[in-house]
């Protein structure tokens, strides 16, 4: 019996000729047949998706916990940058962005997160301030921050930027650079908004570069660019405890209620097209869920029911 050749076969390295030769010996032929039969045995019951769901649940729970501890250290571990003779003046910027869910941590990598239903502010290494709206996340590299002020944003945030080198915010929809200004950015799945309240903002998207002076704004909706106007010197409504919309789909408005109050909003399939196609203009408060739901649902003749963390939307 050729033991070496049999091992070669078992090690998944045998050629056709090797196998032929093994099969010509009745003893190894029997081992081959046994081995091949064994390969087709079934050990069923692997729950690939359910297991992965449970593993992911753990990952997101750990992420939230880690971020909380990290946030604390970013408060105490501030590094002052560019303390040059240059006169500091402050530029306020509001950035609102939505990107996919994604998570990464390393010693040099700082991630700031607000879960749904929570607003929070941090000071960045250069003294700039960031306020995250509910359900948002921002990442930056501590090391490269000295050379380049770049932050990645997912969700919605207000920036109060210290004057210095270019301050860039990267999003899935484009890069926004502060050139000394006060501005507002909002990215929602297929939409991207930038509103400039003071100074000047540069917006770079995949196919265009725009300069937005104070009082102007832009909206990129599924690739369609339109101009918008804002009041110079104003602040976005969410900073003052309200979310405002102009001609926005009801679905996005409901999603925003869910984000602000950390609740799940459900509606039966028959309302899907109504919710997707109806447009909403108006606002809802962040202080009272019932009033918020009423102000959004009533115009469409919809009613709602609260069950703990869930809100069910229906029609009487």
């Amino acid at each position: 019996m050729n033991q070496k050749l049999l091992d070669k076969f078992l090690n998944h390295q045998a050629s056709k000729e090797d196998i032929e030769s093994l099969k010509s010996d009745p003893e190894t032929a029997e081992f081959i047949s046994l081995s091949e039969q064994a390969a087709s045995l079934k050990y069923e019951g692997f729950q690939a998706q359910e297991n992965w769901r449970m593993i992911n649940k753990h990952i997101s729970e750990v992420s939230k916990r880690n971020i909380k501890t990290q946030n604390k250290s970013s408060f105490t571990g501030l590094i002052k940058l560019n303390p040059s003779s240059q006169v500091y003046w402050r530029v306020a910027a509001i950035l609102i962005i939505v990107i996919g869910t994604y998570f990464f941590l390393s010693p040099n990598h700082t991630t700031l997160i607000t879960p749904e239903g929570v607003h929070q502010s941090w000071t960045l290494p250069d003294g700039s301030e960031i306020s995250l709206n509910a359900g948002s996340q921002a990442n930056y590299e501590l090391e490269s921050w000295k050379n380049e002020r770049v932050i990645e944003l997912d969700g919605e945030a207000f920036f109060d930027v210290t004057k210095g080198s270019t301050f860039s915010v990267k999003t899935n929809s484009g890069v926004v650079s502060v050139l000394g200004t006060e501005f507002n950015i909002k990215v929602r799945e297929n939409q991207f908004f930038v509103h400039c309240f003071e100074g000047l903002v540069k917006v770079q998207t995949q196919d265009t570069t725009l300069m937005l002076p104070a009082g102007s704004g832009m909206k990129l909706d599924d690739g369609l660019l339109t101009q918008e106007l804002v009041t110079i010197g104003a602040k976005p409504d969410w900073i003052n405890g309200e979310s405002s919309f102009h001609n926005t789909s009801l679905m996005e408005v409901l999603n925003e209620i869910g984000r602000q109050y950390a609740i799940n909003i459900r509606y039966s399939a028959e309302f899907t097209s109504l919710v997707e196609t109806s447009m909403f203009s108006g606002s809802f408060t962040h202080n009272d869920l019932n009033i918020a739901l009423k102000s959004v649902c009533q115009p469409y003749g919809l009613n709602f029911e609260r069950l703990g963390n869930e809100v069910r939307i229906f029609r009487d």
Partner: protein
Amino acid sequence: MDQNVCEESIFSRIYQKWGQALFNFIRYKTKDVDQANDLVQEAFITLWDHCAEVSPEKAKSYLYTVANRKFLNQVAHLKVVQRHQSETSTGIHQENPEFLLEHQEFENTLQRAIDALPEGQKTAFLMNRIDQMTYAEIAEVLEISVKAVEKRMHLALKTLRTEIQELKNR
């Protein structure tokens, strides 16, 4: 180490590649499907919790080590399973020989003969056959030498042959 499994894309690729094999590994030791799925979850969760310390290349053996250790810790359960397994293997002797050579029956017989193998031989043999792992890969995750894997494979084949021969002749 510039790469570790904390990156979700790497982590999910590891799951896609090794989730099923890890499940099988536990299933070779137990018939309890729920326990095997639970241990897969626990092993991957442990890997995630230590992701910064584990390189992608080491992730596989880390998973097997964790799953195996956790499995052995469930001693009380293991005893029940072993009792169950020895009961089923004694069942072989009640088979009616006339049916043994029919195809489905042969598979059942093979399955029972495999179930009756000593733990170490059975695991190595099935990892090699079903999960298509090489001797070196098996040696790595079981933390034994390649020579030891070879030996287990030979012994397993010989035992299986004898067992099945015996059944044919009865």
